[in-house]
C-alpha cells in the first residue's frame, strides 16, 4: 500500500447527505477484475449525461476541481454497498483524502486499506472548509501532526493510532497479522476437538 503523510491541493465540495457507494462507482463498473482504471467512472452518473457527454455543471468536471485531491462531503459519506471499488475509483481519480462529519463503517475501513484518509470534523468546520473549497482555495493535511491547514487556520482531527501508523508507513495488514501466526495456530488447535465446527462437504 502507498503511504500517506502530507498532501496539499484543491478540494471539491459535495455537500449532499448520504452519498452512497452506488453513486461513487455505479454497478456496471464492478465487473472488472482489476483495482485500477476506475477513476474515469468516479461519480459516473453525475459526471456524464446519458449520452456519455461530460456534464459541465458537476464540480469534478470544472477547473480547478477536476484536479481535486480532497473531497469535503455531507454526513454519512460512503453508505451502502461494501464495494472497495469506491476508494479505488477515488484514488484512481487522484483523491486521497475525504473530509466529512461522518462516514459509513465499511467504506471508512476500506479507505485505510488503500492509502485513502477519511477525516472526521464537526459540522461547523466541514462547512468552513466547504466554503473554501468552492472558492478554489488549496488546503494541506499533515497526518503525523493530525491537522488540516486551510487559509492559516488549523483544524485538528482524531484518528485511531494503529491506522495512522499503517497509513504513515504504507504497511500491509496481512503481513502484520501473520507476525502473530502462532496465535492463530493455537486458536485453531483449541477448535480441533469440536468436530461440528467444520462444515460438512457439499
Amino acid at each position: 500500500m502507498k503511504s500517506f503523510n502530507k498532501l496539499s491541493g484543491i478540494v471539491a465540495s459535495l455537500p449532499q447527505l448520504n452519498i452512497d457507494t452506488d453513486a461513487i462507482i455505479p454497478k456496471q463498473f464492478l465487473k472488472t477484475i482489476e483495482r485500477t482504471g476506475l477513476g474515469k467512472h468516479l461519480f459516473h452518473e453525475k459526471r456524464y449525461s446519458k449520452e456519455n457527454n461530460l456534464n459541465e455543471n458537476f464540480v469534478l468536471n470544472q477547473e480547478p476541481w477536476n484536479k481535486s485531491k480532497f473531497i469535503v462531503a455531507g454526513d454519512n459519506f460512503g453508505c451502502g454497498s461494501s464495494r472497495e471499488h469506491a476508494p479505488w475509483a477515488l484514488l484512481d481519480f487522484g483523491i486521497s483524502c475525504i473530509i466529512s462529519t461522518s462516514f459509513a463503517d465499511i467504506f471508512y475501513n476500506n479507505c485505510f486499506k488503500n492509502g485513502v484518509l477519511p477525516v472526521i470534523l464537526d459540522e461547523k468546520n466541514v462547512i468552513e472548509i466547504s466554503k473554501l473549497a468552492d472558492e478554489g482555495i488549496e488546503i494541506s493535511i499533515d497526518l503525523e501532526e493530525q491537522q488540516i491547514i486551510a487559509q492559516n487556520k488549523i483544524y485538528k482531527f482524531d484518528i485511531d493510532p494503529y491506522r495512522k501508523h499503517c497509513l504513515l508507513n504504507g504497511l500491509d495488514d496481512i503481513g502484520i497479522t501473520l507476525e502473530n501466526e502462532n496465535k492463530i495456530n493455537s486458536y485453531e488447535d483449541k477448535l480441533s476437538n469440536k468436530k461440528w465446527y467444520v462444515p460438512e462437504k457439499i
Partner: protein
Amino acid sequence: MKRTLFDKIWEQHVVNERQDGSSLIYIDRHLVHEVTSPQAFEGLRNSKRFLRRPDLTLAVADHNVPTENRVEGIKDDVARIQVETLEKNVKEFQVPYIPLMDSRQGIVHVIGPEQGFTLPGCTLVCGDSHTSTHGAFGALAFGIGTSEVEHVFATQTLVQKRPKTMLINVSGKLSVGVTAKDIALGIIKKLGTSGGTGFVLEYAGEAISNLSIEGRMTLCNMSIEAGARAGLVAPDNKTYEYIKNRPMSPKGDSFEKALAEWMLLPSDEGASYDEIVKIDATSLEPHLTWGTSPEDVLPINSQVPDPKNIEKETLKNAMQDSLDYMGLKPGSLLTDIKIDKVFIGSCTNSRIEDLREAASIAKGKKVNDSVHAMVVPGSGLIKEQAEKEGIADILIQAGFDWREPGCSMCLGMNPDQLKPKERCASTSNRNFRGRQGRDGRTHLVSPGMAAAAAIAGHFVDVRNFN
C-alpha cells in the same frame, strides 16, 4: 458478569488483543461471490500466500448472473469473464463452489443458511454489505471490503475494533399484513441511515420471537441500511429446527454437542447495552419509501412529505432533490403513486415465505396491464419448492414473470434494470439513485405490498386489499 449475545460471540473469537485496543478475531465462515473476490485472489497470488482454510469457505456466483435463458450462458463478456475468473480461482485455491447451473445456486445470503453453512455463535463474513442477514441465526455476520476478503483468505482472521451494542426491543404482536420488512423500515425511520453506525444491533422482544427464520433474515439483512454492520437475533428452537439436517450443518452426535453450546448464547438477563431502542409492534403499519434513501420512509396511508415543513437547510434541500428525482409532488397520497415495474426478490425478500406472501395476494388476480412484475427466487431450491407448492403457478397465472435465481434487479448488474424514470415497487433493500438502473425510481416495500401494487397498478394498503 452478565453478557450479551454479542459479548459472548466476540469474546470466544478473540485470537489476540492488540495494544491499540483493536482485536484480531477468528472468522469461522467466509462466503465468496464473483464481484468482490477477484482482486483478493489476485492479491494472494501476487504475494505467494495460500488460502488458509478453504474448508471454512463457500463460493457462488450471484450478482452478475442472468435470470432468464441461463442455458445460453452470460452474454455480457465482462460479466462472463468475472464469473469465469471465480470458477478458475475456486479451482486453484480449492474452495467449495456451487456452480451456476446447479439447482443449489442462488444469492449468497440465501444459500449460506439454506445449505447449513451459517451456524449460531459463528463469525461469518462476506465481501457484501448484506452479510448482516446471517445474524438471524445468532451469528456475528458482517460485510467487508475486498482487502479484508484477502486478509481472511490469508489468515482466517480480521482486525476489528469492538463495536458498541444496541438492543432494539420490538414488543407486542404485528397486525395482519405487517411484516418483518415493515419492522426493518420502521426501525430505519427511527434511527436514520447512520443511527446504527459503530453498533451491532440485537433485535429482541415478542414480535421478534414470533418471526419465522425467514422474517428474521429480512430484518437482520437491513441492519446495514441503518448503518450497523451487523444485526443479531438470539437463536431459539426455530433456529435449531431450521439448521438441523441441512447439507453442511453438523449431524447426529456433532449436532447435539453444537446445540449444547448454542443454547448458552442468548444474552443473559440483565446484560447491559450501550443503547436501548423500543419499538411497539402493534402500532407498526405497512411501510413504503418515497425518496432516495431507506430513511425516506412512511406508513402507506401518508402523504408525500413537503420540504417547506423542514427547517434545516441541508435537510430541506436533500428532500427537494429526492422528490425531484422521484417525480413526486408534496402532499399527494402515497396510495396514488402509479408504478411501472414490480421486483420481488433480493437477499432481503426472495425466500419461500416471501413468495408465499406474494402468491396469497395474487391468487386468482391479474397483474395490471401497465405493470411488468418479476419474481426472482433467492435460490434454485426455493424456485423448485415454490413450483412444487403451486406458488409458481399462481404467480405465473396472475401474469408475473417467473425467473431464475440471482441478485437481479436489486442492483441491476445483470440485464434486469429499470429504464429512466420507470417506477418500481421493489422488495429489495436500497432505493438509492440509479441503483436499479440509471434514473430509475425505487420504492421499497414488503412482498405482499409489492404483489398488491402489481395488481392495482399503484400502491395500496395490503391490509385492505382483496
